[in-house]
């Protein structure tokens, strides 16, 4: 079966998880969270969450503790830059145990 049945004339898609593929494979730097420094974790409440707010890939779960979906995180580092308590560190993938 070909793609004509989708009926599209141009690229068009409902927003959905992983629409552009597993973008986590692009990552060279991984955000590693130290939850002992995280404001939300310390307050045990949905506060701060700048990382969630600024993540351009919506790869951070709005939860306590926060969760970063490494299947889609591209490793841009905006979360680490935006974190007021320096709870997120960008670590080279090659230095991660399960890194690629």
């Amino acid at each position: 079966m070909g793609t004509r049945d989708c009926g599209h004339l141009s690229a068009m898609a409902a927003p959905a998880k992983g629409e552009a593929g597993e973008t986590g494979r692009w990552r060279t730097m991984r955000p590693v969270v130290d939850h002992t420094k995280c404001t939300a974790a310390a307050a045990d409440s949905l506060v701060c969450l700048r990382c969630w707010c600024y993540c351009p890939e919506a790869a951070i779960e709005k939860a306590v503790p926060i969760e970063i979906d490494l299947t889609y995180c591209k490793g841009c580092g905006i979360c680490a830059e935006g974190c007021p308590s320096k709870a997120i560190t960008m670590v080279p993938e090659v230095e991660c145990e399960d890194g690629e």
Partner: protein
Amino acid sequence: MASRMAAAADTEVQIITGNQAMALAAKRCRVQVVAAYPITPQSQVTETLSEYVAAGELDAEYVNVESEHSALSVCIGASSVGARAFTATSANGLAYMCEPLHWAAGARLPIVLGCVNRAMAAPWSVLNDQQDSMSQRDAGWIQIFARNNQEIFDTAVQAFKIAQTVSVPVMVCYDGYLLSHTVMPVDVPSQEAVDTFLPPYTPHTILDPADPRNLNQVTLADPRENEKGVLCHGYMELRYLLEEALEQARDTIIAVDEEYAAAFGRSCGGMLWTYRSEDAEVLLVAAGSLASEASVAVDALRADGCKAGVIGVRAYRPFPKQELIEATAPAARVLVFDKSLSYGNEGPICGDVKAALYGSGSHPAVHGYIAGLGGRDVRAAELAEAVRRDAAKGAVAPTEWINCRI
């Protein structure tokens, strides 16, 4: 003739420039968004449209922008949400639109662009040739040339219908100054008549907060299933569809021209037009006002006993391949006059004519001529003289420049 008489009651002859004809056509087509940046010789188009909007004669958003890139980008946004969008430009302005030109075609948006043909810098020139639109021929747009002010109006109205029929943007090309600033009588149909001819535009795109979509999102090399498990096009399939639409546009361009003739009593010729070509032994091929000038040359040649004729290239993309094979079949020689150059090769129309005739059997010799670059005047007598000189050339001859005094 009967249809012309019937239509005549519903029209008004105005004595206007080519630019005013283009603006008036956009108004008659009830464009809803206009975004353009001034550039000679196009400026009068957007000035006239801004006057219509300011006077309340045209219910459109007139968006002031800081560049041609933004002008076409505004049109892309407007067209995506279902507005009939129009812009116009020339030369370096068109070049500055290069990126969104490709985007508009890839997004399959029926934008109409008036390209008032002007020479590309450097060096600066505001005068006419056709290098600007020729340089954008592979952007995926339909390109149609008009040869006089009446055809500018008629082609612009047809362009909106063609564009929304095949979901491909259309560039209406006409020669700067020679047409843009020359005053001619133009038969202008009534608003009601154009409303009847041109149905409202319904977008194929969906932009609805209640049903959100990403448009023209990152598309990978291979087809992928969407969130509902439907296999969607990859990049290559979308390009195939665009090419398929350009090929289908041949029939649409012809059909829309026929519909226009039935409604208004005038045809622009479909894919191409001919003049005294039926028994012609030598044919002059050109686009735009240069092809009109070739008609004058042909009359002079015929008076001297030379069986000459003209093929005016109206649609340049899609290119009228089959029509050219048929129209050139009786001729021994074809002279192609290009007002632009594919540097390091030859005139773009000449190269395309040769490609169209390749494999079609015993086709005529095709000889390329470069003329009128940067506004250099091209006189009918020079074209006729080129035809006379051409008789001595063999089947294959190098490109010759007309009136280049180097």
